[in-house]
């Protein structure tokens, strides 16, 4: 019912063990030591956890200062339920190897997909916006007036045709 506004709610989470997911997909687990209004975080005794299928591995990272904008999610780790039951922990080299393998597989898949698309004459690109005018309310009246006149100019030309 009661909550603190914004990142102030993180203050209650300080000194607890947290999992932080970053924008690049990395998962960090560590003790939250400090936050600020931007949700910049300081993690202590951090480990980077890598999940590959049913195995995972922890890479010790020490103190981790995270710029707030990179935080995707943050949640407290339940110490009692921290050991995932259906996952097995492996050593760092093993998990790194697994991760690389996974990456290569993914890249391979992408390549095949690309080739397939190319064969069919399709090159995936960024979606285009529909070809229409989108006027936001932020248009200044300069724009509006000019746009109006330009529109009506075309309109008039159309009429005269």
């Amino acid at each position, binding site marked *: 019912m009661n*909550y603190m*506004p914004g990142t102030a709610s993180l203050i209650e989470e300080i000194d*607890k*063990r947290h999992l932080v997911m970053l924008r690049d997909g990395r998962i960090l687990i560590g003790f939250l030591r400090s936050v600020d209004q931007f949700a910049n975080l300081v993690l202590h005794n951090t480990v980077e956890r890598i999940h590959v299928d049913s195995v995972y591995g922890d890479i010790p990272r020490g103190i981790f200062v995270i710029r707030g904008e990179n935080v995707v999610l943050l949640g407290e780790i339940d110490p009692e339920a921290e050991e995932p039951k259906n996952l097995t922990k492996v050593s760092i080299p093993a998990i790194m190897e697994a991760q690389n393998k996974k990456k290569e597989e993914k890249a391979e898949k992408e390549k095949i997909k690309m080739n397939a698309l190319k064969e069919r004459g399709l090159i995936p690109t960024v979606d285009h916006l529909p070809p229409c005018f989108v006027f936001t309310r932020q248009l*200044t*009246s300069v724009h*509006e007036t000019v746009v109006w*006149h330009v529109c009506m*100019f075309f309109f008039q030309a159309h009429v005269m045709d």
Partner: protein
Amino acid sequence: MSHHQLPTPYKRPLDGGKFGDGNIDQRNEDTFGSGAVEEDWELDHNNFVEFDISRYKKQLDGKEESTENLGLDIPKVIANGCHQENFQSPLLSPSQLNEEELELSNQQLAAAVEELVLNSDQDQDAIDPAIVSLRRQATPSAGKLPASPKLPPHYDTSKSNQFGQSKFQEMFRRPQGSMFTGKMSKIWKEKETLGLNFLSRLGGSAPTPPPGFEPRPSSPPLEDEAILTAIKDRPMSCNPLLSLSNPLVVKAEDLERELQGSSSRGPSPIYGISIPEENPPSPVDRSLPARSVSPIFGSPSPSNLPIGTPPKHVIMDMMHQLEQQKKAAEQDKSGVFQHPGTSGTVPHPYFSLPPGVPAPPLPIIIHTPNRPIAPNSSSRMQFPVQAAPANFVWPARPGVPINPLNAQDFQRLGFGMPPRSPVQSPIGSPHTFDASHSAGKQNIRRNMPMPPGVIANQGFPLCKQSMMPSVSAKRLPLPRFGPGHLHPEHSKFVRMRQQRHDGRRDRRHYNNHRGQNREGVVGIPGDPYANIMTQKEKDWVIRIQMMALQSDRPEIDDYYYQNYIEQRLRDGKLNSNDSNTPTRLITPTKPNMENRKYVPVQFVNSLGKLTASSVYNPRQIIDLAQPAPAEEDGGNIEQGTNSRLALSKRLVVYKIIEKAYDLIVVMEELQYKLENFNEVPIQERDLLRNDLQSKSESMVDVLGFHDNTEFHAHADPVFQVMKIRKGKKLVARAIPFLCQEYGFIVAQSIFAHLAILIKRDSKDRVLHEMYPPLSNVISLFTAKQFVNACSFLTSFALTAAIKDQVGATIICKLLNKGSELFSSVDDITEKSQWKKFVSDVHDVIISVANPKEGSRHSRPSNPSPLLEGFPNVFQVLDDTNKNVSSEKLKRSYQQLITEKSNADGVKMISD
């Protein structure tokens, strides 16, 4: 397709528009900064238009009756006018235009747009084709006609000639020059009825022009071209587009060239076109917004904002406008600026202002009949239909609580004006607190149970009250405004629920609540790294976040919450007992910005640099500029009247310290290597030693000894360094690396300023770090050095020293050293000086231990157990001063050592 059905911008309501007229201006000022838009071009424009009207009236004398209700007859009137003057209009109606002319008009349109956009800094009057064409027509006929007797009394006809009649006559000597005179006046006179007629003719099917495209005599050039067309094509159409085919449109460059000498300086065309000002000009909205309050810590003061910076607090503008409107309305009521109702045009009350002078705030013209219908381009922009004047911000009506928002902002945000009663709208706005109620309300709020996480902040609602007395004064009795920004209903509900919960748990005040949370914060018991973030830092973050919740514009900043609450109210859920309603944390911790004035720190070379820290500039970039409080008080030699000099001096000292630290760190490392790595080869050790030696020399340079082994109390660089806390630590660390010669200078410096150092050290608490190295230096004193050093210790310094632990220790060390030094010295003068020193210390000890009644000296509250480290000191003192009773000295000494363990002290002394 008939041109008749083309949209016309000339639709005008009978009851006045329902839009805030100022939104366009507002928008421009948002974009370009306040004051970027000058207004007088409109004035000039009105000038011309009106001039023409009056002249036309004269021309039509007796031919046309009242122009008020002509309606569809206007075209006829115009046509009549044309026929009477036997003009073959060069402005052809679209149907009359051949393709060539169309082509030409299109090119002209393009050119005009380009001109408008590109030549932003050119003379508005010169560029605005409408004005120009108007002038062109007005001037020749003005020559023919005397000033119209029908002009309103305050209408200064001579003004219309101020643009240089002769020049105009020369410039625009064209056959069609006077042709528009009649039409023009007619159009402006009849635009309201005309517009209405068109409206009725077009029905609802006509596309409406976009917002901001509103016709007015002072409208931007393109629109004025439209006007011209409208005149010309009177019976046919008012299509503004076709007007663009007006061959009379004069190229802006030409005009500019010709009008270069014109004294009237209008706004740049880009602004001119960007302000589709409504007619009549809304004087209220063009008063510069009050952007003088910067509500954010450390944010630059608004006056520093560059043009183009959008105002952060539109609310201030709005409040300012409300105030202006209020004033204006009163003025209007008093009839000061009653304008003739018969005339279709509204004479500018400040018409006699010379062009170029920005229009002062004018009274609102509320009941103007020729107010244009603001085009309803967006179905979302439906405003409550009311008979309120169009440029009157709706909540400002007397009897209705003022919503801090006005219609303009709704429009600007694209929000529909909330259809509900305005009573609900001022949610949480501090402005909505009535002054007469707020005091009592404060008490009520103080006493009423607060929802958890809600602080009742006294004085908060009042903070803006004083600024807006005229607005707040007439406000209705307040609805139930809850704490902070909660919707009144919501806050009531929260209160009720809180009361229900009171039985079960404490009323948790916000702070309590926070405190409780804090206790349970520590994640793992015994975590040595827990609470690294101090409570102060946590509170700071919380405060920052709370501040972010503050809003003067709940409808804008908290649109979804407001809508949500409204919806809940409609559904009746808010009053039910379900406890799922989320509580919103409310933060009345808003700082009273009125009392905070941002005064930037200014000193030499600070131009363009950040000189203050804030949330936005977290690190004070020139933090050296702010004198530490410890250095401000007392004995500040360098801080004279010229604080700038002092600041720059301090900067120099800081730089010295920084350099010295760079050295000292390396030196200590070298020293450590030399001492602890015995296996280091000899050559390498020599290298290290040489390195250390050179570093020591540069340290001597840095500290300002140069080759000067003489101590000068007045030019003492060491003392300057030691005035700063870091400097004291630095000196303590540097002394071991200095040779005895320089160590002696440092000791002299310390002794010479011992009283100041001790006094300042009460906050720094680093002086004791200087003792061990200083003690080493003292140990190596020669008799001459000793006498020299002790000569700096005045009785004042001794008094201060005896009271201080470190000082007492130094004195003891001196006595200790002196006793062994002078036991073997035969020099009479030195010995006598030594004896003098001892007797001084003796006197001081006795006086400090037995303060006289009323003396400002008092016995030190913290006795110096360090004195115990020198058991022979008492003996020294006792031996040297035979004439004073040793009993008294013993007692005094004992008191100074420790108050509680007297017995031990006596035992120690007697040993």
